[in-house]
C-alpha cells in the first residue's frame, strides 16, 4: 500500500512524486516508457520568460528559479545556462504587437526592456539587420531536457520513491477508499492518485471514469551539427501563440513561432511549436518538411550565419493542452483523493513549480500559489464513484 501513486513520469509526475516523498509519503511513479522520454525529454529546453503568457508569469519565474537551482533540489544542474534573450519584430505591425505583449509580460513581473536595433546587435552580434525592434530579458536561458530523466531518476530513488518504468497503466479501480492501479502483470494500491500523463491525460482520465478535455499538439524541433559560436542569446520572434480569445491561437494553427539558441556544445537548436505529424499511439512520428523549412527560414532571417550549418536531426514530441490553454493542477472533482497535473504551455519551464505546489496540496499544506482547477470546464456530470458508468 502506497500513500500516493503517480501515473506518468514526465516533469509533472516526477516533481510531484519527489516532493510527496520528501514530505514523508510512500510513493511510486508508474511510467509507460523511461522517465522523461516524452515531451519532458524531447522539448527544446528553452527557459524563456518572454514567451510565457502573463497569467502564468509568476509561475514561470518560480519555475525558472527552480531550474537555476536544480543542483540544490534535484542534485544535478542539468546544463542550465542563463544567456539572456531577444524577441524580435521585423515589421512595424510586429513592433506594435511586440510592444503590447512585452509590456503586459513586464507588468506581470518579467524583467523585460525594449531595445532598438543597434542595441540589439550589441547584445547579439550575430543578429541580421532585419529587426526593427526587439525586447530583451536577461533571465532567458535553457537547460538540457535530454538529461533530466537521468537526474529525476536518481533524485526519486534517493528520496525512496519506487520507480516502475516500461509499465503502461491499463486500468484503475476503486477498492473502498483506495485506488488499485494495474500495469503489466502488476497491481499496486494507494490512498491517493495523481494523473500526470501529459498528452495522454484524456486516456488516463477515462480509466478513472472522468472526462478531461485534453487535446494534443505535435511540436517539431531541429538541431544543427556543432558549429563555431554564431550566437550567444536565446532568440525568439514576436507572435501570439498563447492567445485563444482573439485571433487564431497557435493551438489551432499548424505554424509556430521561433525559439533559437546555441548550446554550449556548439549545436544550434531551432524550435517554436511548428506542427509535425503524430498521434497518441505512435507519438510524433513524422516531420513536415514544409514547416521545417519555414522554421529554418525564420531562424536564418534573424541569424544569417546559420546558413553555414547543416541540419543534423529533426524530431517531434507530443504535448497536451485543454481548451483554455491553461494548466491542470489540482484535485479531480468528484473523485476524492485523485489529482491531476499537466497541460501547461511552456511546461518545461513551469513544470517543476506546478509539481511542487500540487504536492503541497496533496500533503495537506496550503499551496504557495493558486492551483488550476481541473473542474473549470464544467464537463458532463462526473460519476460519483470510480468505475461506475463504465461497462
Amino acid at each position, binding site marked *: 500500500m502506497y500513500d500516493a501513486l503517480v501515473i506518468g513520469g514526465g516533469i509533472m509526475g516526477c516533481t510531484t512524486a519527489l516532493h510527496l516523498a520528501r514530505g514523508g509519503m510512500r510513493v511510486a511513479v508508474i511510467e509507460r516508457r523511461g522517465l522523461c522520454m516524452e515531451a519532458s525529454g524531447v522539448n527544446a529546453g528553452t527557459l524563456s520568460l518572454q514567451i510565457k503568457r502573463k497569467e502564468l508569469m509568476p509561475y514561470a519565474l518560480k519555475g525558472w528559479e527552480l531550474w537555476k537551482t536544480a543542483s540544490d533540489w534535484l542534485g544535478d544542474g542539468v546544463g542550465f545556462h542563463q544567456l539572456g534573450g531577444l524577441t524580435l519584430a521585423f515589421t512595424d505591425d510586429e513592433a506594435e504587437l511586440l510592444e503590447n505583449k512585452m509590456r503586459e509580460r513586464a507588468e506581470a513581473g518579467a524583467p523585460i526592456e525594449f531595445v532598438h536595433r543597434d542595441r540589439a546587435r550589441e547584445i547579439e552580434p550575430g543578429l541580421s539587420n532585419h529587426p526593427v525592434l526587439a525586447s530583451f530579458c536577461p533571465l532567458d536561458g535553457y537547460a538540457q531536457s535530454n538529461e533530466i530523466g537521468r537526474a529525476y531518476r536518481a533524485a526519486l530513488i534517493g528520496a525512496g520513491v519506487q520507480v516502475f518504468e516500461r509499465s503502461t497503466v491499463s486500468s484503475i479501480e476503486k477498492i473502498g477508499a483506495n485506488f488499485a492501479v494495474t500495469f503489466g502483470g502488476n497491481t499496486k494500491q494507494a490512498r491517493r492518485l495523481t494523473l500526470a500523463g501529459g498528452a495522454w491525460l484524456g486516456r488516463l482520465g477515462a480509466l478513472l471514469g472522468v472526462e478531461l478535455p485534453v487535446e494534443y499538439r505535435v511540436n517539431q524541433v531541429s538541431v544543427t551539427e556543432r558549429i563555431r559560436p554564431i550566437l550567444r542569446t536565446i532568440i525568439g520572434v514576436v507572435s501570439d501563440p498563447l492567445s485563444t480569445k482573439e485571433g487564431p491561437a497557435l493551438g489551432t494553427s499548424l505554424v509556430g513561432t521561433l525559439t533559437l539558441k546555441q548550446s554550449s556544445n556548439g549545436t544550434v537548436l531551432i524550435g517554436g511549436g511548428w506542427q509535425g505529424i503524430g498521434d497518441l499511439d505512435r507519438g510524433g512520428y513524422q516531420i513536415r518538411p514544409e514547416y521545417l523549412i519555414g522554421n529554418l527560414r525564420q531562424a536564418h532571417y534573424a541569424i544569417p550565419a546559420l546558413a553555414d550549418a*547543416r541540419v*543534423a536531426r529533426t524530431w517531434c514530441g507530443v504535448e497536451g493542452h485543454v481548451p483554455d490553454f491553461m494548466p491542470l493542477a489540482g484535485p479531480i472533482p468528484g473523485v476524492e483523493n485523485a489529482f491531476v497535473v499537466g497541460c501547461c504551455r511552456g511546461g518545461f519551464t513551469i513544470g517543476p513549480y506546478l509539481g511542487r505546489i500540487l504536492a503541497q496540496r496533496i500533503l495537506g499544506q496550503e499551496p504557495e500559489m493558486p492551483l488550476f482547477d481541473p473542474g473549470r470546464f464544467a464537463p458532463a456530470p462526473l460519476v460519483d464513484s470510480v468505475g461506475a458508468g463504465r461497462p
Partner: protein
Amino acid sequence: MTAQHWTDLLVLGAGPAGASAALAAAEHGMDVVLLDEAADAGGQVFRAPPKSFVVANGKRIDPDFHIGASLRDRLAASRVRKVFERRVWFVAPGFKVSTFGPEGLEFWTAKSVVVASGTYERVVPMPGWTLPGVIGLGAATILLKSQQALPGETTVVAGCGPLVAAVAVGILKAGGKVGAVIDAASPGDWARALPSMAVRPDLLLRGLGWVGRIRLAGVPLLFRHAVVEVRGGDSVTEIMARPVDNQWRPRWDVPARAFQCDALAIGHGLVPAVELTRLLGAEHEFAAERGGWVPKVDEDCRTSEPCLYAAGDCTGISGAAPALLQGRLAGLTAALDDDRMAPEAFAQETSALRRKLQRARTFGAASARLMTPSPGLLDTVTPDTVVCRCEDVTRREIEAAFEAGAADLNQVKAWTRCGMGPCQGRMCGDTAAALAALRLGGREAVGPWTARTPIRPVPMETLIGEYDYEDIPKPAPARR
C-alpha cells in the same frame, strides 16, 4: 521554387538490388525513378569509376567491374529515369520523398517504393581507432575500386569476413604494401563455411586464390587475432594485435605483437541500412546472422506496409549476387501489385529467379556468418575507448548510463549523447546496442534507436533556398 516530381515507382538506391528492381518494373511498363547519392548506378560492389577517370592500360583491378558496366548499359538503354547525386533526406508514407543534390531541394511523390539502401560498415572500436589513417574495409574497397588509390604506404588489413582478404589482395594488386592481415576467425571457421560456399565455385576459388596470393607476397597472416590498439601521434604509426579465444575475446595474458604501418583498414561486417524502411513504418525484426535489424519481407519482397518493397542487403546481409536477383523480384512484385503483370506471368517469370536466389543466398549466408563478430570482441572496447566519434562518448560513459538505470537504447542516447551527432548513430549504433544487450539481455530488449529525419545531414542553405520574409508562414497575429 523547389521541384516536384511524380512517378509510379521510386527506387531508393541504385546498387545491384535497386538497379535490377528498376529495370524489372520498367520492363513491365511502370514509370520508374531510380535515385542514388552516388554519381552512377552500381552501389558498393559495382561502383562506377569517376567519369573523368581513365585507367592508362585499360585494365582494371576490380573483377566485378564488368557486371557493373553491363548493369549501367542496361539502365542506359531502358526507360528508367536515372537520377543520381541525390541524397534522400526525407521519406514519408504516402509516398513522399525529398532529396538534395545539384538541383537543390526536390520532392518526389510515388504510388510505390522499393527501398534498396544497402548497408553500412561495422567497426568494433578499440583504443586509437579514431586516429587518421584508420579506415573501414568497405571504404578501402571504394578507394581501390573507384580511385585505384591506396589507403597508405603500408596498410595493415584486419577484422573479419571475406572483405579482409579482398582488401589485402586489392592493395597488393595495386602495388601497395600490406603490413599484416589479421583475421578474427580461425581457419576452422572458414573451413566450416566452405561447404555452403561451394555453391559458387567461382567465388570460392577467388577467395582461395586470395589467401594464396597473401601468403605468396610474404605478408604475415594471423588467424584468430584482433587489433587491440592503434598507436600514433597525429596519425597511425603502429597497431597492436593479440590472439583471441573462441568467443573472439582478446587474450590479455599473451604478449601483444606490434606491426608498423601508416594505415589500418579494419571492419567487422556490415549492418543493413534500415532508416528508410523504419521511417516508412515497416515492421522490423532483429536477425544477428543477417547483420542486425531488418524489415520483415515476404517471399516477394513486400514489407508490412502496402506498396512498400525492400530488396538487397538492406533486408539482411547476403551479398551482391542475391541482391541482383532479389531486386528483380521486388521490381516484378511492384509491377504485379500495380496490375502491370498477370499473376501467371509473374509466377512463370519468378520461379527460376527464386531457385537462383535460393542458391545465391546459401553462399551469401555463409559469408554473412563469417562477417558477424562474436560478442567477445567487444572486450577491445576498453573503458576509455571512444564509441561515438561524433559526440566523443566513451564506453565508460555508456556503462555509467546503465549504472544510472538506462534500460533501452533511446535512454542511453538521451543521457550520453551517443548517436546524436551528424552520422545519426550509423557508426556507433551497433556497438552501443551490443553493449546495452550485454547488460540488458538481448538486442530485442534494448531495441533500435528511433529513426530520425534527416537521413543525411542537409545544408541549411539547401533547405531555406531563396526566400522573402513574406514566404515564411506565420500564425495570424491576434488583434489585441
